[in-house]
């Protein structure tokens, strides 16, 4: 059985690292820059990057509405860092006009852990990921400020949720694509496989 076709939104950010991680768990990564390319994937990764930049480019290249529609239709999506912000219902400390895709019933705080000098690595227990702790890299990272009842919190740093899931949507404030540990990507590919959207 060939692996699912998983798109990576390739407008800006660490696309190559996600491609490598998806490849390592047997998925077939493809870059997505156009609405037509979006229609041909079984799941989608929103990479790390600058959420304001990606948001603006989503609008310019007419991907925002197709993406919102795909999320409503049940497309599995995994967002890391900027990708987590894009999946949020609302953002604190963002820009007032910052376009979001939404889908996860949560409010995130942008750059919640501080500036780059405050960026850090830490070992983290993540629900649903078996084995040793996940080594998590936080870079000017957001956290989840408020989450609805439907949102399952998979991991926290101190009090703040930093990994969440709601149905086929998965988001992390950290960057599993930077460490060579592919377990978060495996979890996402399992979500894609079991969602059986038949796309």
């Amino acid at each position, binding site marked *: 059985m060939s692996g699912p076709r998983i798109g990576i939104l390739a407008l800006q950010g*660490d696309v190559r690292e996600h491609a490598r991680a998806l490849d390592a768990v047997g998925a077939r990564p493809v870059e997505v820059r156009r609405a037509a390319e979006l229609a041909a994937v079984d799941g989608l990764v929103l990479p790390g*990057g600058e959420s304001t930049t990606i948001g603006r480019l989503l609008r310019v*290249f007419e991907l925002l509405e197709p993406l919102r529609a795909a999320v409503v239709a049940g497309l599995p999506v995994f967002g890391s860092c900027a990708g987590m912000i894009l999946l949020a219902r609302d953002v604190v400390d963002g820009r007032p006009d910052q376009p979001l895709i939404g889908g996860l019933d949560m409010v995130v705080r942008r750059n919640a852990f501080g500036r780059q000098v405050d960026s850090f690595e830490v070992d983290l227990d993540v629900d649903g990921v078996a084995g040793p702790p996940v080594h998590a890299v*936080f870079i000017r990272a957001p956290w989840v400020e408020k989450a609805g009842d439907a949102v399952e919190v998979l991991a926290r740093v101190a009090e703040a949720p930093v990994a969440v899931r709601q149905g086929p949507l998965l988001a992390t404030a950290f960057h599993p694509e930077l460490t060579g540990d592919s377990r978060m990507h495996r979890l996402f590919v399992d979500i894609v496989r079991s969602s059986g959207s038949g796309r």
Partner: protein
Amino acid sequence: MAPDWSEKRRHIMSQGQTAATAGPATDSARHAGTARVKRGMAEMLKGGVIMDVVTAEQARIAEDAGAVAVMALERVPADIRAQGGVARMSDPDMISEIIEAVSIPVMAKARIGHFVEAQVLQALGVDYVDESEVLTPADPHHHIDKWSFTVPFVCGATNLGEALRRIAEGAAMIRSKGEAGTGEVSNAVVHMRTIRAEIGRLAALPAEELYAAAKELRAPVELVAEVARLGRLPVVLFTAGGLATPADAALMMQLGADGVFVGSGIFKSGDPARRARAIVEATTMFNDPDVLVKVSRGLGEAMVGINVAELPAAARYADRGW
């Protein structure tokens, strides 16, 4: 996965750099300022445009246009050329205003070898320090020891050996130098092609020839071997110096840049906001000529520029650093 060289350096050089205390509560197991965190920050900027700005207002225009970061400096390179004099780190007030004005990362320049300017920039909360040949070098022999900082550094390079010497000193991101403040892209092209070609040659060498290659490149053999194995630098490679149009940005992306710095090219042009947007869109869709046509229309005047060939040797910034 972790590169041996950088991890070794991390352990040797960054003793005691742990425990970031921002956040909801302290967590003793947190490690800040690691090679992975520094290099990872640059990975997040890939496919993006970093714009030189000299005021908070320009920083807002850059953020509105979709810049992934801004570079705060006192004078853009074109003005440094025109006005002459010693070019130094910017006024802390100006940098703080820019940090306040935007939500995207803010970079700032320190003079080559001026580690105290870098200490000041780190204390200001700048997200990346550019140890830059555009400013007047402070030390003719030594670059900054960048391992000893929590803030990451980007440095310029004209060839692979220079890039690897900067990485050996702790640079977490490299940009090809080009010739800043000219609006002329030819040197950026030459430097990017040179770095790529030298990487290609290394990748084709048998392992036993890497020692001599390291000697020729004047770079640590561990880094040379890593580049040969990866087929690229172990850090992100941006381009800079003389980009003025959307087509310039797309050219450099097609030549293999991970992203672009635009200095004087935006705010020395007729319609900075529009040109900034166009360059961002061209950098994303660098392989799509239809988009490049669309974004290149109606931009108004580009910066006038200077032909690099007419610059006397003393006026070439790319020769600064070694």
